[in-house]
């Protein structure tokens, strides 16, 4: 099965000369665009699509936990302001975004800690 899959990919690369474009940068752009189209195809609203694209971008080009936590803090500070301005919908969407950012920060903390330990053992 894997062999057949590999043959097909090989054929695809040869025929469409994809290989010369297939450097990491182009592949990353393709994945980001694909995540955007996937969100549209699944009928998500624009906020969820942007969060999804951001998550994929974060996996490809990770921001450090410090940067992520700084962004989270700024956005958290914005929440009460929006709440007092009675922008309830926007506040709700921003709160979801902050939750996602904090989750990513948590994931990045674990990932960075694991990498540090690996480095220590070496």
């Amino acid at each position, binding site marked *: 099965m894997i062999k057949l899959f590999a043959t097909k990919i090989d054929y695809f690369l040869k025929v469409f000369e994809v290989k010369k474009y297939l450097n*990491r940068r182009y592949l990353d752009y393709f994945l980001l665009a694909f995540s955007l189209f996937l969100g549209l195809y699944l009928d998500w609203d624009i906020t969820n699509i942007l969060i999804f694209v951001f*998550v994929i971008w974060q996996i490809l080009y990770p921001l450090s936990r410090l940067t992520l936590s700084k962004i989270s803090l700024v956005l958290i500070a914005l929440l009460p302001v929006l709440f007092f301005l009675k922008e309830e919908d926007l506040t709700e969407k921003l709160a979801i975004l902050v939750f996602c950012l904090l989750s990513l920060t948590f994931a990045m903390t674990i990932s960075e800690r694991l990498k540090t330990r690996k480095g220590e053992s070496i």
Partner: protein
Amino acid sequence: MKNIRINEIKKFFTINKSYLLIFLIFTLVFVYGRNFGDRESLFSDKSEQLARLSAGVYDLKNSNELTIERVVNVSPGISYRLFFNLSAMLNQQGSRKSGEKLAVEVLLGNDLGDEKLLQTYNLSSGEKQLAIENIFSSDNYYQYLKIRKIDPDYQWLVTIFDISEFALDVKNQSEISSLKPSIKGITDLNQQIQSNDAGGPDAEFKFSRKNQKIGQVFTADSNLISEIELKMEIIGTGGAGNYQAELHEHDPTNGISADRLAYYKFDAGHLVDRLASGSEKNSYRIPLVAKLVKGKQYVFLLNNLEVKFNPINTLKIYGYKRQHGDQKMLSVISGKQKEKSDSLYFKIFAPNYSETQSERILTGAVVQDLGSGRGFYTYKQHGDLTDFLDIFETSNHTSGQDNVFYDNILKGVSAKDLDGNWLTYKFNTIYLFSKFAISLESPGGDFTDSEVFYSFDNIAWEKIKPKERNTAQSDAADKFEAVVFGDGQKKEIFLRVGYSENSSREKKDLINHIGLFGIKNIKVAADLRML
């Protein structure tokens, strides 16, 4: 060459673990990520709001006050009687406040800003106050009816419907107090006749497969069923499309009978409308109205045949991990039936009708005294299950099946166009009538044409010709209207609906022939002599 390529792919994913992670995320999102909510439901919400408005149902939702035009027209020096129904519902997010009451004012208003308070009502969530009657004399002109929440609270939905105003032929307060009390037909749907409530449910049964049916066999304890209460929970959005509840006869040897006795379609978004008031959380009343034979076995089933769903957007039903009595729970997947040693939580309800002089008063019918010996009888259907419950008799066949059922898609009553099926409504006006006006609709379109008759004695029938008859290409309804003059000595009139044999033959050849005829929106008014 091939081995080299496989190794290259393996190497690529080993070095670039992030791509493997993204591939996994894409796969999971593709399988489980479809949004079943938004666009279609938004569109249908809008069209539903319009349909409610044209049916005379007014909602006070995201504001504190609602002004309704063209339902009242009040002049000074005249007394009036106003009827309306009022209901209140606390939305799901606000359920923490359940038990509280909402005070609602009903007022008259005009363009000059004058207001006249009719009454203040305290409503609890899920409560429906039906046929509220208000008699008043006016010293001013009023063109609007207003409803106002005393404490602004956007979590409450207040609905006012069936507003009707009548001018009274009275000169002073003493004549008002000498008016005969109005007679109202209120059908109580809360009479519980059967239950297997054995405390908190300890099992849940989820719709996780395509073409799945989950059901429960029960032995009928009464001759009529109107609703079944189930404990259900919507997971995520609940999926897109209509779930369907159905009621069948059940035979211990032959299993589920092919013919449905009743069915009800609902989507997860509108399940909130079926929340059982005053009951525990997640209890929903599903209308399944049918005549039963006491002691006979029946089965109710819920299916997801028309639902697009996934594990995070579906519906679950609560029950018990043990069998209740001798009754079995059934699971049907793609037609394969399996008996289970569990049981579903359910309660069965039957209607209780109001009577006057040993005569049943149809649901929502009102007999009122207008003063000076004149009275008025009104009856109007609403497209709910009481349209079926109000039927006086149906064509009984030896099979015991009369194939007449409440059709919640049509919002009326449907019947199979075979064996000469018919159904009859009986209107008893309590007092003698001189003039009787009838209007009703049959579905038109792919339905077999209906034929409508009236009679004073349930024997000799006069045909009512359709005012408009629409072709199969049109989905518009056929309309029937008639004004009947009695001899002033009658207080009963019968209305029979059958089907046209010719239409049935013609439509049998159509590909989308549905083999049904139907009736909806019956509206009746009569002039009465109250002396």
